[in-house]
């Protein structure tokens, strides 16, 4: 897919980004920034006062299974250096109850909702996919897998979703087996690859003293995922959606530069929700340019009095005594777009 990282067109003045395999049911969004599963609940309304949800490309729901699941016992959150470990047990009231409670909101939402289906038994995945398609509120299904999934199980899970639904299937690959599994997923009918599910780890909970296993989140995840996104996007013929450790617009752009068609934002949604909107505006071409010294736009969440003072101090600072000896040359714009630097050269 390299060389065509974003399929762009003009429709009502917006981008059109096809994030799944081209076809009758392909999924097109107008901003490459999405919220990852588990980060905004089942319908994202909890974030309507914190993020302008209209600016996002899509939101992936929390994990849904056919049968209800309870929460994990014991500690569920363990802070680690620069991140945290999370083990919730993927609690949800079961597909029928989720649909009953949220499908109306999904249908009303102008933002595409993608349902995340937890891979369980074949029959349950079929029923879950059927029910979700029947709800009419979701535009695609993201399939989550166990970390130790075998190729046969992956194929069976994809078959199960396909048996229950014609919606596009985004397959979320485990980080450490993504390189081994993506090709099987592509051949088995996945419409897009989400790279990757957060890796699992184990650490000691400082409060209880217990060892807790769970998924790991944090900005340090990005370099690991970026490498794998670059490797897979180089060869895959279906779109790759990157997910892992995005905390700045540059992080997201790195993924797009590595060949991802879109990105999913994970834990940033909790620690700095305002930045999610900044990234969506930045990648959606909505970032406003403004005259030097002008007041920030009302949407910019980081601009408080302290930042204004810092900026004013910077403006009154004297210019440097002498210009730098040689300014770096920027690459030509056209070349930049048609022949992007291959980030996997040194992978």
């Amino acid at each position: 897919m390299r060389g065509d990282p974003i399929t762009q067109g003009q429709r009502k003045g917006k981008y059109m980004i096809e994030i799944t395999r081209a076809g009758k049911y392909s999924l097109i969004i107008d901003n490459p920034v999405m919220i990852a599963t588990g980060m905004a609940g089942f319908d994202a309304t909890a974030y309507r006062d914190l993020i302008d949800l209209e600016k996002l490309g899509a939101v992936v729901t929390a994990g849904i299974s056919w049968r209800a699941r309870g929460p994990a016992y014991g500690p569920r959150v363990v802070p680690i250096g620069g991140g945290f470990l999370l083990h919730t047990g993927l609690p949800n009231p079961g597909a029928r109850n989720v649909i009953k409670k949220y499908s109306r909101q999904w249908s009303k939402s102008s933002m595409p909702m993608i349902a995340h289906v937890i891979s369980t038994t074949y029959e349950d995945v079929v029923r879950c996919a059927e029910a979700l398609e029947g709800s009419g509120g979701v535009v695609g299904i993201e399939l989550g897998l166990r970390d130790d999934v075998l190729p046969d199980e992956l194929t069976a899970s994809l078959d199960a979703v396909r048996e229950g639904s014609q919606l596009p299937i985004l397959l979320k690959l485990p980080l450490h087996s993504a390189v081994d599994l993506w090709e099987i997923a592509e051949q088995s009918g996945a419409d897009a690859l989400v790279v990757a599910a957060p890796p699992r780890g184990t650490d000691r909970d400082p409060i209880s003293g217990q060892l807790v296993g769970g998924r790991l989140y944090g900005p340090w995840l990005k370099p690991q995922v970026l490498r794998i996104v670059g490797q897979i996007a180089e060869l895959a013929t279906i779109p790759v959606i990157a997910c892992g450790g995005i905390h700045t617009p540059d992080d997201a752009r790195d993924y797009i530069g590595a060949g991802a068609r879109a990105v999913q934002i994970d834990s940033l949604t909790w620690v700095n929700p305002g930045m999610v909107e900044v990234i969506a505006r930045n990648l959606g071409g909505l970032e406003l340019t403004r005259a030097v010294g002008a007041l920030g736009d009302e949407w910019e969440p980081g601009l408080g009095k302290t930042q204004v003072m810092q900026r004013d101090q910077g403006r009154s600072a004297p210019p440097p005594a002498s210009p730098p000896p040689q300014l770096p040359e920027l690459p030509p714009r056209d070349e930049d777009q048609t022949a992007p630097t291959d980030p996997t050269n040194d992978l």
Partner: protein
Amino acid sequence: MRESKAIIERTRRIGPNWQHLALAVEDTALAQIAPGQSLLVRATDSRDPYLRENWVPVGFDPEVNVLQIEHPINRHYGAGDAVSVIGPIGLGFEIMPGANHLLLIAQDYPPTRLIFLMMQAIENGLAVTLVLTGIASRYPIAALPPVVEVVHSEEIVAWPGNKEMLQWAHQVFVITSPVFAEERYRAVQELARDARQALPDRFLSGIFDLTIPCGTGACQACMVRTRQNDGLVCLSGPAFDLAKLKRS
């Protein structure tokens, strides 16, 4: 719930391990904060700590929109520091109509989450007894109003006079470590059953001081199992009626 800025105006040490931060808030919604509710705060642009901290108010001055936050002295804050605030988180504690005597129990755990409730109850003319057991007995009480009856005990559950207190209390709030919440709350419940003929609804509330990653109900990491619907500490907590908890 919104994200807003707040400024730390003053810091004051109230004991060897605790400090009070005077936090001037911009968001008018935070001026309505009730005892039991808290804030998710990001105090620094660095990623340590990465998750937002749960800051618990112990008082509010409505004239200047300043919240008093009680915080362990594990981090240095200075006057003028700006922080990002999301809140209020959770529901306020509900006092039953007609309750005149509150029994607040901190079992081997800091009583910080009970202090704002205690202050407001005193303002409203209620009598308050604060029981501090285990490590909670080391909490500095010099800053508390003298009208509060404070009972100290090294025994975590079997503090002196516990049955009598549970008999005359109109409502009880208990806090303990989330690690031992289930067994300790069950022990208090059994104690109350022994002490009283009947336990009315909401007589005994347990406070769950769990780590809250998102504060919006999205992550479901702060779920507490109840007999009707599972509750989230960040939306319907932190206090839950102990009679309605589901036991494992």
